[in-house]
């Protein structure tokens, strides 16, 4: 399944679990699976998360300040979960087995 479908599909899958997923976890996972290295790719994946949330496919359920530098020190960390709209939109794209 990994790394052969568009990144946003995979992000939706990763956020489709109880309690959601933290942005730094998703970003790391995607970087590993798609072999995307470097800070530019990291920020680009995080921006995909921001776009998905902006379009209401994801919503943040928890926010905290990145004290330890998990993603970027001093910035916010978001825990995202897929919304009902996101599930419906993903149903005919990447979450067919759900």
């Amino acid at each position, binding site marked *: 399944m990994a790394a052969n479908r*568009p990144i*946003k599909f995979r992000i*939706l899958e990763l956020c489709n679990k109880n309690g959601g997923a933290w942005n730094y976890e998703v970003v790391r996972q995607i970087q590993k699976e*798609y072999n995307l290295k470097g800070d530019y790719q990291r920020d680009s994946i995080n921006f995909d998360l921001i*776009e*998905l949330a*902006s379009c*209401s496919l994801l919503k943040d359920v928890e926010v905290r300040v990145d004290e330890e530098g998990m993603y970027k020190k001093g910035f916010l960390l978001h825990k995202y979960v897929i919304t009902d709209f996101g599930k419906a939109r993903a149903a005919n*794209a*990447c979450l067919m087995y759900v």
Partner: protein
Amino acid sequence: MDLQSLKKQEHQRRIKKGFMWAFFCAILWGLWYIPGTVVWVLNPFDAMYGEIAATNGDAVSLIVTAVLITAFNALTVILALMVWNGALGKFGEMKRTLKEFHPCSKWFFMASIFGGPIAILGSFIAMGFVGGAFAAVAALAYPVVGSILASKWYGEKISKRAFIGIAFIILGGITIFGGGLLTELGTGNVAWIGYIGGLMAAVGWGIEGAIAGKGLDIAEPDVGLTLRFLGENIIWWIIAVPLLAIFGFPMFKYALLAFEPLTILVLVFAGITFGFCYVTWYKSFPLIGVGRGQGIGNLYGLFAVIFIALFFGDIPSWTILVGGALCLIGSSVMFSEDTGQMESLRGE
């Protein structure tokens, strides 16, 4: 800083970025009118227009020449986009997205039909049968179509304030082109074809935006846009140009003559400005919504007149001051909207 204000700050940054993209779109779109105007008087397009006009009349000649110019425009746009995606390292994502025809690339190919042969050709038809000012004014209506569709189709929230902003910008555009519009409406013998062209432009670009918004839900804007232009190149180069050649128009003869240094330079400039105006347009949609992105993008009317005045010395009439002021009011109304409203762009 506490969590709430950090969150608010992060959110405002997102909205600002979206508006910035849309604003750049308007500037680049306006800039595109320079090569977009110049290319018509360059050979081979000038000679092509003359040859076809001699046998088929001015209006037909204008549309057939427009097809070839638009085809070259689409070609240089995709070249610019390939460089752009290469620099961003997005070829891998492009391949992955292209393969997902049903959920992803289908939308971008549909967007290319509405944005390409319907909107651009419609715009040229409006220009040919009624006039340039009418074509510009007709196209200004597209954010209305786009935002209504995006709201009805997938529930994009469009605030009253954003709609007021769009209305001001459209009024501003109408005022800018107003004088020319009145003269044009009185002339022309087969004007109704031109009106249909104008309608095609407004509806085409509006639908394109709404469809693109749908595809961009689950795709990257840079990649999605490149697929949209891949579609447009197929439409022009594999369908329209050969079809017109079969009907006896000298398409290939003039296409081969286009490889002159100055013509290529102007076409490349057109490709870069048009390509990046589209990049910024598509990038703004997921951040501020189709309605706002298109509304701010509509400022292209003002920029086009300004750039044309700067580069060609066509002094615009005084109405540009009134129109420009209306555009400014409209944009301020949108820029200053409370961003809290835009936390999520769609109602759940």
